[in-house]
């Protein structure tokens, strides 16, 4: 009925008192604080100096960045930004990539905000309509769109294609594998174990090489399929194995009684898994799942080894451009890549923390 909510009591204290209490409460803490301050003093001014004060922000080629005491060479980034985002995707067709991006964001944002209603419809849009639309828009060859071979895809767009496909497909596949590994049917259990142990045991680089170099050797003459597609399959199968083990950890945390209660009510195996066990199991392992997602996101850079140019590959590629060859260009390029990846991964990490917090407040155990 009426519910009494108690706000946490927050003491109002002065800044000096706060500093004393939190930073200098004991000799050991004082030493730590001083050491940390020294480290900050060492790193931050130097970083700012390089990235801002000594950096060049405008210019048309390498001459702008050849000063005696040169910092970051930002024009290298701004000048090539188009390539970094779209790769070699034809310039006059870039609107298709942009449209895909907008369609994706339009579906993702309301899905991520808990208060927005129509979650089921929204999920249907994201898992049904969006992938189809994205596929048609990006690859073309249909509905009056000129075909764009995946060899021209690149940059951040390719990073997102590989990462999103991997993330969206590896979770359900991982769940099925995790259930399989706990199955009572020996054949299914054996298959799941072999699958998981095989994919976990080989490095992703090997998988990608196999997919792009070895696989065509096994296929009959004349049968080819897209290199990007092969990479997508490789990345998905690979991360599904990791996902399966994370999910299995969650499944093990659910008491047997939950499934017994579901069975006693007449729910079948898939019903009790889908409505009772999996939702609870996934809640337990959100940190592990997001950890795997982040790992996958960063591993997309490895497609470089089979000749696909994601964001990192594109930057690397442009470094060899003589027009921008300066001592500061590589550092600037790598700093840019690192920053973009960090923003994406940090975003995922923060979002997962907010979900965890919300689930805790949800009143469920």
């Amino acid at each position, binding site marked *: *009925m009426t519910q009494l909510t108690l706000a946490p009591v927050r003491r109002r204290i002065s800044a000096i008192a706060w500093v004393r209490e939190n930073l200098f409460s004991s000799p050991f803490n004082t030493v730590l604080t001083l050491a940390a301050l020294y480290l900050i003093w060492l790193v931050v001014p130097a970083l700012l100096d390089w990235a801002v004060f000594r950096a060049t922000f405008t210019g048309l080629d390498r001459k702008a960045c050849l000063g005696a005491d040169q910092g970051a060479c930002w024009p290298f980034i701004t000048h090539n930004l188009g390539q970094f985002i779209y790769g070699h995707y034809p310039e006059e067709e870039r609107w298709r990539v942009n449209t895909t991006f907008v369609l994706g964001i339009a579906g993702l944002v309301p899905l991520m905000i808990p208060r927005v209603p129509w979650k089921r419809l929204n999920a249907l849009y994201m898992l049904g309509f969006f992938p189809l639309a994205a596929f048609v828009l990006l690859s073309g060859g249909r509905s009056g769109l000129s075909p764009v071979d995946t060899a021209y895809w690149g940059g951040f767009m390719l990073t997102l294609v590989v990462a999103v496909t991997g993330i969206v497909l590896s979770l359900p596949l991982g769940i099925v594998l995790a259930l399989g590994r706990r199955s009572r049917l020996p054949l299914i259990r054996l298959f799941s174990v072999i699958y998981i142990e095989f994919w976990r045991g080989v490095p992703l680089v090997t998988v990608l090489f196999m997919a792009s170099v070895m696989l065509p050797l096994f296929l009959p003459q004349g049968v080819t399929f897209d290199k990007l597609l092969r990479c997508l399959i490789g990345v998905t199968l690979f991360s599904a194995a990791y996902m399966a083990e994370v999910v299995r950890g969650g499944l093990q945390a659910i008491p047997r009684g939950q499934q017994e*209660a579901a*069975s006693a*009510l*007449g*729910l079948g195996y898939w019903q009790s898994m889908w409505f009772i066990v999996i939702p609870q199991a996934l809640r337990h392992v959100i940190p592990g799942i997001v950890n795997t997602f982040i790992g996958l996101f960063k591993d997309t850079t490895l497609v470089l080894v089979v000749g696909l140019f994601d964001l990192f590959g594109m930057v690397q590629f442009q470094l060899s451009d003589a027009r921008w060859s300066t001592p500061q260009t590589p550092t600037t390029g790598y700093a840019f890549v690192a920053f973009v990846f960090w923003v994406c991964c940090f975003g995922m990490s923060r979002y997962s923390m907010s979900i965890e917090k919300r689930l805790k407040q949800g*009143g469920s*155990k």
Partner: protein
Amino acid sequence: MMDSLEKASSVRDLATARAKIEIDGMSKWYGTFQVLKDINLNVLEGERIVIAGPSGSGKSTLIRCINRLETHDAGRIAIDGVELTDDLRRVDVVRREVGMVFQQFNLFPHMTVLENLTLAPVLVRKMPEAEARDVAMQYLERVRIPEQANKYPGQLSGGQQQRVAIARALCMNPHVMLFDEPTSALDPEMIKEVLDVMIGLAESGMTMLCVTHEMGFARQVADRVVFMDGGEIIEADVPEEFFAHPRNDRTRAFLQQILSH
């Protein structure tokens, strides 16, 4: 043995009732250890049975075999004439008609009380959602906690959770209710509220099998008390006889222990 069963079931106008649950020569092993030995038990429609016995005597295993949470290895179990076998369709038929209440409640913690109650009717009985909600609210009234409908199980007391669990089972409109030590995990002050609900249910004519140590409850509502030890049914009788004149030494020893204070 069989004599006493027949005699007991003929009491209290159950003479014309038909058998709801038939268990004939049922045995079960865990590896080489036999947990249930040649169990024979017929339960009539509307009959209330309390199963008592020391821990490890196989009471819980027995009633868990009735809705096939455990499989039996020998003998026969039939509910409403449907024999339990490996045939999953039959198991589904039986589980739809048999409700169960567990010692640890086993409510679904990620769902509200109302969602706990409507899930199975909607999924299994294909009941429209609105109707399922109405039914759920009726049963929550009956267990006297309608005001908790939108809370999560974790926000309720143990007694309240167990009452929700009873309501959840009733929402499937079962013909038989199994209770597996429903009050053993509860704080003493909450036992009564759960027993009251169970007594109300018994008075409504529900066929019930309760594994419990609540002998007061057994005296009050049971048509028969079944005493188990070492995986066997040692004796079964109407409560008046069972408590006043236990025939077996083991029964006597057990009763002395639990009734001594």
